[in-house]
């Protein structure tokens, strides 16, 4: 390893040395703002990005019930560099919680009665109600019916924001491997602002219809995007930090995938 380290350093340097002036500048400012700024732990504002590219709850799923296995049947995750059959490849919504576990940036926007999350993927907004309304249940939930992003209620427990989401559409995959979730599932998120640059998220799925035990996710870390990236043209020409990463069938299906199909021996091999 000792012999390897200089080589790794050289390779890393070679990989980053060009066109990194902007980011080096951000890095310096990023460090400066970390030491200079005080944090209100109830203010999650900012643009955040997961530090680890993991589109799942981050832990192995507990065993599925028979109904859970039936719901998962036919779902093919990506394998060997080829895409599986996840619904988002056809521009369907990722749904909750898959979108929260995506690797693209997310912005928290604090308002008096709602906390909003704006996701770059899908350019999607999620509303976490903090006005004291109860989590929908029973007849109310049955009447509301399923939604791709469910119905979310949030409250502060000390410095932890606890979000409960119910009423999820079972067509959306829980994660990148195709685990299921039922309409009657509840997902609890615990968000905590650790310091100026760091957010922690821990997520647990309660779904006795599809799982034999609660599915407790790992602790995930988000880092704050430097403030400079949020100003006009901060990212070298982007108008704002969160941009529109919209899966539009006109782009995706007619444009990009058709382009890729030209180079495929089998057009269905995505």
């Amino acid at each position, binding site marked *: 390893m000792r012999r390897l380290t200089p080589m790794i*350093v050289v390779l*890393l*340097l*070679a*990989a*980053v*040395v*060009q*066109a*990194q002036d*902007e*980011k*080096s500048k*951000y*890095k310096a400012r*990023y460090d400066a703002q970390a030491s200079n700024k005080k944090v209100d732990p109830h203010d999650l504002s900012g643009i955040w*990005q*997961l*530090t680890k*590219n993991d*589109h799942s709850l981050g832990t192995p799923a507990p065993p599925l019930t028979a109904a859970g296995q039936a719901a998962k049947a036919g779902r093919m995750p*990506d394998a*060997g*560099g*080829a*895409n599986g059959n*996840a619904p*988002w*490849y056809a521009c369907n919504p990722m749904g909750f919680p898959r979108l929260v576990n995506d*690797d*693209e*940036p997310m912005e928290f926007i604090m308002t008096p009665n709602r906390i909003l999350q704006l996701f*770059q993927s899908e350019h999607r907004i999620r509303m976490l109600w903090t006005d004291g309304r109860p989590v929908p249940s029973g007849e109310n939930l049955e009447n509301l019916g399923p939604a791709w992003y469910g119905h979310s209620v949030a409250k502060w427990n000390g410095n932890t924001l606890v979000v409960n989401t119910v009423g999820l559409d079972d067509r959306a995959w829980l994660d990148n491997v195709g685990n299921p979730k039922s309409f009657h599932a509840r997902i609890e998120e615990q968000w905590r602002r650790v310091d100026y640059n760091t957010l922690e998220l821990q997520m647990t799925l309660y779904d006795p219809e599809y799982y034999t035990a609660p599915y407790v996710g790992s602790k995930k870390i988000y*880092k704050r*995007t430097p403030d400079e990236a949020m100003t006009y043209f901060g*990212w*070298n*020409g*982007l108008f704002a930090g969160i*941009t*529109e*990463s*919209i*899966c*539009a069938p006109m*782009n*995706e299906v007619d*444009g*990009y995938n058709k*382009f*890729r199909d*030209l*180079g*495929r*021996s*089998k057009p269905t*091999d*995505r």
Partner: protein
Amino acid sequence: MNRLLTLVALIAVLSASLLAHHGRGATYDMKKRVTLKGTVSRVEWRNPHVLIYMDVKDADGKVVTWGFENSGVSTLAQEGYNRNTLKVGQPITAIVNPAANGAPTAIVVKIVLADGSEIMSRDNGENPAN
């Protein structure tokens, strides 16, 4: 060393964005590199991946239009590129991994401008078209 690793980690996180969800399986021959010399004929500056087309003369003098894919708009913009970085008619040399089936489509390795400078280089991590 720690600072370098932190910087590398930060860059990796920033550049991991956009459309890591497209596998490139079975499309391109990643072991093969082709050098294309020609002129830019079209720039499709949009997500999910930016497509750049160029006219290349083959050995018989016949013009073949090649297209090669790049990362998405956000990622390229963060690297300092924009919709007018490459203009129609501009002479460029593109190093690409070509389609496995021989079609004139490819994924970028890097682009060399007339003055010899290299841009949008996947080699240098500026264009993570995955």
